[in-house]
């Protein structure tokens, strides 16, 4: 399955990555599964993705981390928003 992953703000800085397109054999069923997979990239990734205030979005909507992921989805990780 293919998943696009985006990172913003201090999460982006921590993993030094803006965007990834993953095409993996394993079936990843949830955001939590995706986080585990990304954690294999190193300690910085594990730390960033276990940030206590981490927010995740699937297809531009904020979701809980048990949210299902499907082929073609766009997932994003970021800290609390500070717009306006």
């Amino acid at each position, binding site marked *: 399955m293919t998943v696009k992953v985006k990172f913003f703000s201090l999460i982006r800085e921590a993993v030094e990555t803006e965007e990834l397109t993953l095409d993996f054999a394993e079936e990843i069923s949830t955001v939590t599964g995706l986080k585990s997979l990304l954690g294999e990239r190193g300690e910085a990734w594990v730390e960033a993705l276990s940030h206590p205030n981490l927010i995740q*979005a699937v297809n*531009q*909507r904020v979701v809980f981390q048990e949210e299902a992921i499907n082929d073609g989805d766009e997932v994003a990780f970021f800290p*609390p*928003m*500070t*717009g*306006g």
Partner: protein
Amino acid sequence: MSVTVTDKDISPGDLATAFYASNPHGAVTTFAGFVRDFNAQGDVETLHLECYVEMAERVLNDLGAEARRRFDLKSWQIVHRFGSLSSEKPIVFVATSADHRAEAFSACEFVMDTLKTDAPFWKREDSEGDGQWVTVAARDIDRRQRWDTKDPVS
């Protein structure tokens, strides 16, 4: 009924003028937010607003539609800047139009309070060679939450 998310300068005066021209009816409330004057804060030179553009457009469109339904708006507009902004530059413009002022005011405040915590923008204050991410203000969280329980207009 429109959302604009842009890295170009915005002009709240022009936006207000156009909104009034297209909605010369009843009550219109607007809000414009500007970058604070950094002089009081030491060496901050620029405010940088990072944005997840596709999500921001979706969230702001949903927010405008919710405000319209909840406060019986005739019309609304949300414009939000991202990118680098110097002191005193406009960041955000919101306009709401309704039959009565109570609804126009509440809707405009609801949109502002909600987009502060729900729209994917992240502020960073940049000084020479250094950047500091702005953290969420407790008062912004409080102001967001009151809309979860409050009557539409009070």
